């Protein structure tokens, strides 16, 4: 019989005989090494001469059926799973982190949810955050519309890498909402005792019970487990690779905060009677990061066949003057070109310097203080749902709070 992971085995090696549970291969492990979980709980890697099975075993996922009480006095909140490990549990034997796939799993992971709402949970797909694509945004938007006919609000657990992109996409695709749409993630997965998932998820549920008729992201506001910020889906960005408080509202204040209660800091769109879906996207849009040294042919190839392009310019919104003819040609050929800033903070202004004025003259649209990723998604959505002239004129108009007139010194 061939020894398999999960078997209790005796391994003879040059260094002596070891007993323990044979573990699955680790992809970082040396090829000649087998991993053994010893009786004291430690894993070690050893080079085997012979492996004898003492007792067959197996790793199998136990599933538990749990009754979740339904109560009339709390609203129903729908959870749409998209992947990621915000709600997950660990198999101590294998170390594998399994996502919570069902409503039961979810409630079990964060039992306090039951106090807040009746849980309606489904898994739409299970992908890595970095594998997100526009077609998935469309799927989520459609699912949200469907769920909002059954639930008071929707919570979407999402990987943090691309969460702000999804938030922006949903913001445009769902111009009117009958309930809040709240995206939430975790910077420390929930298989760890220190996970931020619990507070984030519970806070998201609280926001999903309000009259917020917008798409929001709810995440830790500080490094402490004290409160969460509510970010408008079109103003939020992941600003740190690993901190709990990685998500920040840029060029605006957060919409509000959550600890025990939800508190809004500013006006927001209220929920309406129905949810409107505009789910077409034109994927022929590129997002271009200008850098000193970018040559004509590079820019040309990035613009080739594109219906639209967002250029992340330097400072107030500039690119090297040598690229002006390329951009001019693209605009003439019918490509919608908008410019945002690499600074992220602050508004673009093409009136101050000559290069800016020239860009404006060739038909580049300055996009105020809009975030680059948001502008990119907005343009895809506009080109998907409107004719080109309307798209052009709406690109620099504030539709979902993605642009503001004023930026305060205290933000």
């Amino acid at each position, binding site marked *: 019989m061939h020894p398999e992971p999960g078997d209790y085995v005796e391994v003879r*090696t040059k*260094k*002596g005989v*070891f007993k323990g549970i044979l573990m699955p291969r*680790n992809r*970082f*492990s*040396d090829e000649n*090494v087998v*991993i053994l979980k*010893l009786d*004291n*709980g*430690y*894993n*070690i*890697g*050893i*080079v085997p001469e012979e492996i004898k099975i003492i007792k067959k075993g197996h790793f199998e*996922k*136990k*599933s*538990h059926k749990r009754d979740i009480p339904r109560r009339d006095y709390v609203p129903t909140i729908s959870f749409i799973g998209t992947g990621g490990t915000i709600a997950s*549990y*660990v*198999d*101590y*034997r294998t*170390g594998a*982190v399994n996502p919570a796939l069902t409503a039961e*799993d979810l409630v*079990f*992971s964060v039992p306090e949810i039951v106090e807040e709402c009746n849980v309606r949970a489904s898994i739409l797909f299970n992908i890595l955050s970095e594998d997100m694509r526009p077609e998935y945004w469309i799927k989520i938007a459609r699912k949200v519309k469907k769920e909002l006919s059954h639930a008071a609000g929707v919570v979407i657990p999402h990987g943090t890498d691309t969460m702000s992109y999804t938030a922006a996409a949903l913001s445009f695709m769902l111009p009117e909402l009958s309930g809040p749409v709240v995206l939430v993630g975790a910077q*420390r997965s*929930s*298989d*760890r*005792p*220190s*996970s931020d998932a*619990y507070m984030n998820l519970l806070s998201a549920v609280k926001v999903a019970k309000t009259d917020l008729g917008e798409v929001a992201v709810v995440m830790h506001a*500080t*490094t*402490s*487990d*004290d409160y969460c910020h509510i970010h408008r889906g079109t103003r939020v960005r992941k600003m740190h*690779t*690993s*901190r*709990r408080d990685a998500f920040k509202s840029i060029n605006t204040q957060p919409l509000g905060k959550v600890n025990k209660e939800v508190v809004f800091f500013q006006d927001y769109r209220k929920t309406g009677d129905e949810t409107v879906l505009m789910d077409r996207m034109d994927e022929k849009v590129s997002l271009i990061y200008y850098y000193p040294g970018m040559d004509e042919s590079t820019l040309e190839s990035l613009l080739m066949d594109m219906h639209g392009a967002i250029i992340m310019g330097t400072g107030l919104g500039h690119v090297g003057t040598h690229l002006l003819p390329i951009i001019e040609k693209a605009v003439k050929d019918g490509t919608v070109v908008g410019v945002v800033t690499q600074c992220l903070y602050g508004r673009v202004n093409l009136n101050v310097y000559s290069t800016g004025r020239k860009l404006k003259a060739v038909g580049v649209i300055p996009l105020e203080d809009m975030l680059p990723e948001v502008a990119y998604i907005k343009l895809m959505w506009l080109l998907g749902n409107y004719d080109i002239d309307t798209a052009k004129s709406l690109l620099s108009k504030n539709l979902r709070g993605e642009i503001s007139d004023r930026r305060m010194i205290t933000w």
Partner: protein
Amino acid sequence: MVNDSVKIGLEIHQQLATKKLFCSCDSDLRDEVLYRFERVLRPTQSELGEIDRAALEESAKKRKFIYEVTPNSCLVEADEEPPHELNRDALEIALKVALMLNAKIVDEIHVMRKIVIDGSNTSGFQRTALIAVDGYIETSFGRVRIPTICLEEEAARKIEERDNAVVYRLDRLGIPLIEISTAPDMKSGEEVREVAQTIGYILRATKRVRRGVGTIRQDINVSTGQGRVEIKGASRLNMVPKWVDNEIERQRTLAEIAELLKSRGAEVDRTIYDVTDMFSTTQSNIIKGILKKGGKVMAVKLKGFSGVLKSEKYRLGKELAERVRVIGIKGLFHSDELPAYGITDDEVSKVKEMLNLSAQDAFVLIAEKPDKAKEGLERVIERAENAIQGVPGETRAPKDDGTTVYLRPLPGGARMYPETDIPPIRIYESYVEKLKESLPPLPAVRVEELKNMGINEEIGWQLIKEGVDDIFEDIVKKYGYPTIVARALLNGCEYVDYHKIFQNLHAGKFAKEAVDEIVERVCNGEDIDSVISEYTSSVDVDAVIDRIIQEKKDLIYERGEYAFKPLMGLVMKQLRGKVDGGLVSRKLKEKLNMYIEKNK
């Protein structure tokens, strides 16, 4: 008494003097606090349905943890950045220690997460890796096996415990720690001390371990055939034999008590009685005070326990009192010690009557607020029931008088799962062979080195055993005085700044003869600077010498430089015991030569 049933094991934790294990922060403790943040920890789900019970109990306390950020802590300690790869410098030191302990190094090292949610780790787990197995050391009592050697990260330093929060400082979190666990192969306190000394020597021989209070921690497990008792933090070597031998004795007595109780058919009545009424006119100040504050006197009945709680031989009452002292109850009384503490014979009789006690029965009273008294008596009941069985397993804290005191129950088995953020490390044979060639000298070699510094072999061994050979070498190389340094180190105590003493001696502040007294006084808690200044001669050496040279002009004229000897005698007559003779001799020679030179 046969020693066969005695099993003693040792667990040693030693901090390494390197950067931290999973980031590039320094391993120093700091008082500077830059920032504070708060967290909560939750037990994680294992396979669905299974939550670690100890973890759950800890989390039920709903405590928050406040962390103090120091200059030597970064985002890694704050659990805001994934751990970096395992510190190779620390690993190499640990591997060398493992080899010196004759252990076999695993072929691939896997870092694990050990769940700890008391807040001492921001992540909620301690990262730990088993690096070697099957080691041993030889002692004068025989071979002691060392089944496991681990490399792990140190926990955060607890600063303060409040009702709903615990404050930790991040300076200590992440310092590399070698954990060496022996098999329960030892039989006596002396043997434990020898093993601890030997392992201590091996650790220090790497010259890369941290020194000072708290940098090495030692837990001793003692079993005499029944429960296992862990003596936590038994780090002072000289005390180890006492702690161990007292614990063996304690367990033997408990076993004897169990036999006696069984033969009597002893039994614990689980009812908790309110006997407050019996004390309505009490003259006991303790009880009066508690009753005034709305407290009650509650009692339990221990059938067949009379004479076991306190007598010539037995002290079970003390064990009961220890169990309630950890929850803050001091007012526990039992029938073997009463009447006393203002509780009268009459009151004792009334309680006995009410509880319907026969001559062999005993009772325990707790005077406290009702809920607390009940909680306390439940602990008493549990401990008394254990007493009929024998020795309960528990964690005990060592005390200065050589005894130990109840601390808490034994920790449950730790839950461990792989640390997926850190890739495993393959350890190749060729690397191990290279390490073997660069191991530090074993004690026998070290003794030769010490002998060459000017002491005899016996003293050399003593220095090694006491773990002061390195500091001996440091001081002697700087200032000399090998025999005096050795004597000071061997008679002195840990917290004396020996460098300072010998630096001052070398500078001529006081005489050699004063060293022993200075060391003794500083050990007794006196301030080193004021003691040194007390011994520091108030006389001006130069002035004394100059004066005597002037007085003995004739002698110098007659004898020239041969006047040195008699002059030295005269000078020392005035300075003996106040100034080091060597220094006086140097100075006198100098001044004499100068004088002769001038007056040629």
